[in-house]
């Protein structure tokens, strides 16, 4: 059983990395929209907040679906030897993972975009 829980934890980690990858692709497609927003006067912080809220809502939606699935599947997965149930602790862990995924995704996008000077072309003289 200990081995199984390790497998589960590694799987969750891999899934989290996969989700971050998907979100990064999704955000890459948004690059044009972000550039347009900059042209019409968006400030960096507002764009970051917009991005974060969007990614966070996606993550929370995915987290909510996961919790519902876990709740309904728990009984089916339980055996007489081992009880599987959805606890408030597990729900908290899922919510925390969602939050971390959203934050990591936005930070990676923001840092990459600034580094490549794609997102916001500042006025400061760069030679």
């Amino acid at each position, binding site marked *: 059983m200990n081995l199984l829980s390790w497998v589960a934890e590694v799987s969750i980690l891999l899934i989290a990395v996969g989700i971050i990858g998907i979100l990064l692709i999704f955000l890459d497609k948004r690059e044009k*929209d972000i550039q347009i927003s900059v*042209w019409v006067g*968006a400030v960096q912080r507002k764009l970051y907040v917009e991005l974060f809220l969007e990614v966070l809502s996606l993550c929370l939606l995915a987290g909510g679906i996961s919790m519902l699935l876990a709740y309904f599947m728990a009984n089916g997965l339980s055996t007489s030897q081992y009880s599987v149930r959805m606890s408030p602790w597990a729900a908290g862990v899922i919510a925390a993972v969602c939050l971390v995924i959203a934050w990591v995704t936005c930070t990676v996008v923001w840092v990459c975009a600034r580094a490549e000077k794609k997102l916001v072309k*500042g006025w400061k003289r760069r*030679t």
Partner: protein
Amino acid sequence: MRQGGKEACERVEEENMIKVQNLKKVYRTKNIETVALRDISLEICQGEFVMIFGRSGCGKSTLLNILGGMDSMTEGSYRFQGIELGKLNDRELAAFRNKKAGFVFQAFHLINDLNALQNVEMPLGYAGMKRSLRKEKAEAALRRVGLEDRIHFYPSQLSGGQQQRVAIARAIVNKPRVILADEPTGNLDEENCHSIMALLTQLNQEGATIIMVTHDNSLVQYASRVIHIRDGEIAE
């Protein structure tokens, strides 16, 4: 070419809206240095329709991007209504792009997930305007460009000419001091091209300053002044 232009500008010196002196733009990568613009000096007055004319790759779009606060210059001075743009921080530059300048691009650059009204509302949203007022102003701008019956259409449901009209409505919705247009008719057929140019002319006659980049000789007739750019330099 239409009447007006530099003579009028010289008469009313205090109306100089844009003053560029010895502007230079260099793009540097690891080993390559490309001089896009060199020693550009120009003045543009309130109410002018200036056409920046030149071949592809001569630096005219780079100049427009610098005038619009979308790109930085390497050397020189650029003053907009007396304010040196090189000294503004990112937040102030965003406010400049939002309130003082309106942009129109060749590829329209509308957000596909937003309808015409929402696209036009964007600058007002970033200016912090209330939703009800935003809607009212965006509708007025769309009426101004003759698209009052298309306000809920998405870009994919509009023709090229209509998309460019939405882009113009977005550019004028905040009543900017200057409209910067980068080959606005480049993706349009002849009929739509002249209709868009007529609209820009009309906006200019109502007081808007327009700076337009083009390589199309037939559009020069709409401008009150033409600035020729050749190999990154003004060739007048």
